[in-house]
């Protein structure tokens, strides 16, 4: 490289230097290790200590996992098998899960009817597809197909009668075809999911959910008829009153009359037989889907200029947030019965769902209020100055932005709600963590089993909550338009 004309002041480069390879300390794994684990004496020390702790933990847990026993009829048998592995050996006894997994999943739900909750679970994802992946046709299709394949595979594994598997296969294929041909129509699955799911889980006459939907139809009809004359809030209130009156009085009579004329339906399953993840997911999903709209309304109500609306919202939020969830659950199981007209039999799961929904809605309202407060005043002014009315401005301009800001908080609340469903064991329901485990341990064969059920249930909870968390991150990325 001595072609530079060193003798003269003016300088012209004749040859360009080829790029040289970076020194070994700036490359690949070594660079990463240096930067992240050994960047100084303190970090090196901490790395070594952490490695030692990991080593100790693995040394303690590994043999336990390696000696896992899957085939045994009782804890005693498990222990014999583990003892055979050597002096002082420890081992996990997963045989309990193998023996009792169905209780962890379904509680005391009748075995021959397992296909119903499984189908309801699969349909849940078909119903969620257009909500979770709005405008993303490929993701909607993938989710629908996966849900269908999952349901059919599980039904086969459960040894469901061929007729039912065939019918479910046809249904799932039809839904997939719908998702393929007319993705926008998939929303109807979402709309009618709630009554279908109710029918699948609880069974009974077809007419009960049908007349219940009639109540919503009544609400919509009253709202549409009155809204142009009296405005959104009053029309909504009148519609709600009409619907509640319908549900309280003629609903049951009409349903009974219809089912005596045309008795079709599924075998009824009482709420007392629900348990395990079936119960947790039923309560969790219902409460999540109803608490979000309620939370939004409460957040808007708290910001309202109307004194009564504001006072009611603030009172509701502060009261519900100020009371432990368990108090509310006891209210659901004991007190609510006193306030209702005598003779009404208000299902315990429904009562719990209502109060869990209220609980989550109060927290969501505050999370969403944070999002609303983060929006600059100019957004409200711009919406106003264009002539949008209050509800249009909220729906089109304010809420899309406020909710986007609140996504992490909203999902946190959802995850918390879902995990809190295990608290229903305090009112005698069979939650997967404590309720079912207690029943399993009451069996003489599994008396004394400790870690395995909790690890199993915890792992399933983790998978679901982690899924929600990942989804929220996807959603945040998708909705990012600010390009900061």
């Amino acid at each position, binding site marked *: 490289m001595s072609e530079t004309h060193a003798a003269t002041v003016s300088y012209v480069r004749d040859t360009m230097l080829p790029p040289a390879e970076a020194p070994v300390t700036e490359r690949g794994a070594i660079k990463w290790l240096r930067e992240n684990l050994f960047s100084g004496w303190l970090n090196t020390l901490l790395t070594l200590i952490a490695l030692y702790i990991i080593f100790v933990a693995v040394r303690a847990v590994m043999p336990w996992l390696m000696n896992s026993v899957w085939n045994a009829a009782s804890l005693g048998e498990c222990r014999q098998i583990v003892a055979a592995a050597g002096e002082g050996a420890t081992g996990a006894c997963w045989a309990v899960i193998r023996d009792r997994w169905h209780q962890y999943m379904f509680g005391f739900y009748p075995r021959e009817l397992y296909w119903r909750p499984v189908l309801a679970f699969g349909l849940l994802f078909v119903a969620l597809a257009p909500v979770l992946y709005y405008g993303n046709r490929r993701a909607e299709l993938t989710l629908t197909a996966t849900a269908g394949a999952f349901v059919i595979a599980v039904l086969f594994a459960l040894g469901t009668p061929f007729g039912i598997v065939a019918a479910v296969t046809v249904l799932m294929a039809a839904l997939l075809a719908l998702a393929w041909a007319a993705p926008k129509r998939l929303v109807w699955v979402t709309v009618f999911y709630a009554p279908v799911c109710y029918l699948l889980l609880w069974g009974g006459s077809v007419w009960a959910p049908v007349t219940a939907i009639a109540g919503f139809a009544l609400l919509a009809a009253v709202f549409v008829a009155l809204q142009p004359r009296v405005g959104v809030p009053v029309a909504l209130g009148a519609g709600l009153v009409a619907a509640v009156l319908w549900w309280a009085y003629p609903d049951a009579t009409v349903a009974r009359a219809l089912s005596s004329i045309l008795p079709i339906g599924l075998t009824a399953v009482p709420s007392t037989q629900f348990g395990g993840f079936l119960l947790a997911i039923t309560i969790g999903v219902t409460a999540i889907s109803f608490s979000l709209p309620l939370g939004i309304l409460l957040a808007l109500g708290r910001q309202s200029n109307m004194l009564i609306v504001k006072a009611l919202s603030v009172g509701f939020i502060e009261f519900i947030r100020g009371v432990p969830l368990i108090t509310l659950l006891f209210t659901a199981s004991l007190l609510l019965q006193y306030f209702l007209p005598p003779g009404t039999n208000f299902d315990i799961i429904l009562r719990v769902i209502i109060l869990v929904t209220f609980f989550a809605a109060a927290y969501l309202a505050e999370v969403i209020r944070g999002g609303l407060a983060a929006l600059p005043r*100019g957004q409200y002014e711009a919406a106003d*100055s*264009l*002539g949008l009315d209050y509800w249009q401005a909220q729906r089109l*301009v304010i809420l899309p*932005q406020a909710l986007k800001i609140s996504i992490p908080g909203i999902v946190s609340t959802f995850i918390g709600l879902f995990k809190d469903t295990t608290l229903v064991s305090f009112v005698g329901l069979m939650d997967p963590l404590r309720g079912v485990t207690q029943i399993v341990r009451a069996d003489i064969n599994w008396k004394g089993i400790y870690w395995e059920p909790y690890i199993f249930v915890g792992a399933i909870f983790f998978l679901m909550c982690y899924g929600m968390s990942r989804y929220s991150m996807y959603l945040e990325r998708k909705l990012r338009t600010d390009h*900061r």
Partner: protein
Amino acid sequence: MSDAVIDRKIDRSHMQVSNEVAIQIEKMNKWYGQFHVLRDIDLTVYRGERIVICGPSGSGKSTLIRCINALEEHQKGRIVVDGTVLSSDLKNIDKIRSEVGMVFQHFNLFPHLTILENCTLAPIWVRKIPRKEAEETAMHFLRKVKIPEQAHKYPGQLSGGQQQRVAIARSLCMRPRIMLFDEPTSALDPEMIKEVLDTMIELAEEGMTMLVVTHEMGFAQAVANRVIFMDQGQIVEQNEPKEFFSNPKSERTKLFLSQILGH
């Protein structure tokens, strides 16, 4: 302050002031708590007028034009916009707002919507215009403010001057009869000020009725037919621009003009 040069010839053929009243303000008063912001404002704006409102900060000029489309509530007096009396009746307020366009200092575009969606939102939901037609109108006005190629971007991807031109187009999509500008160039760099002023001049050339709160005295001299000077919540002086700048009557106006033109 008038550092942005108006270097174009202005076509005055359509700038005609009719004797039809566009806005009538009578004895309007407003308080923020105990603070008397606007005192006995009387102002009549005729159709086709281009009025520039100036004055020191805190003089109530922004508040005045924000009262015209009810972004601020006035406590006493009467405001009539396009024949509609501004009262607390929400129907009247919405009617006036859909007839009066407003451009803000900080643009206030909706960041979660594309430029095109920003422009079509109000026509679709307030005017109930079919989406397709609304999009055609929006593209027409985006071409007018010279950024049709940005239609599918988000506001965050545009420069300040571009955003303000989109904000103007968004207002125009509602086909307003009156446009209010609340310091439209105060948040912009000098070179962007010019592109926004050019857009406003074009609007004036088409005969739009405009009320502009601004410190751009070059714009006032070139385009306005009336300049209003406000101080302490009152209209202190108003005149046609030539007289206003060359021969201000009140001491307060003289002081203000010497401060903003003197450097």
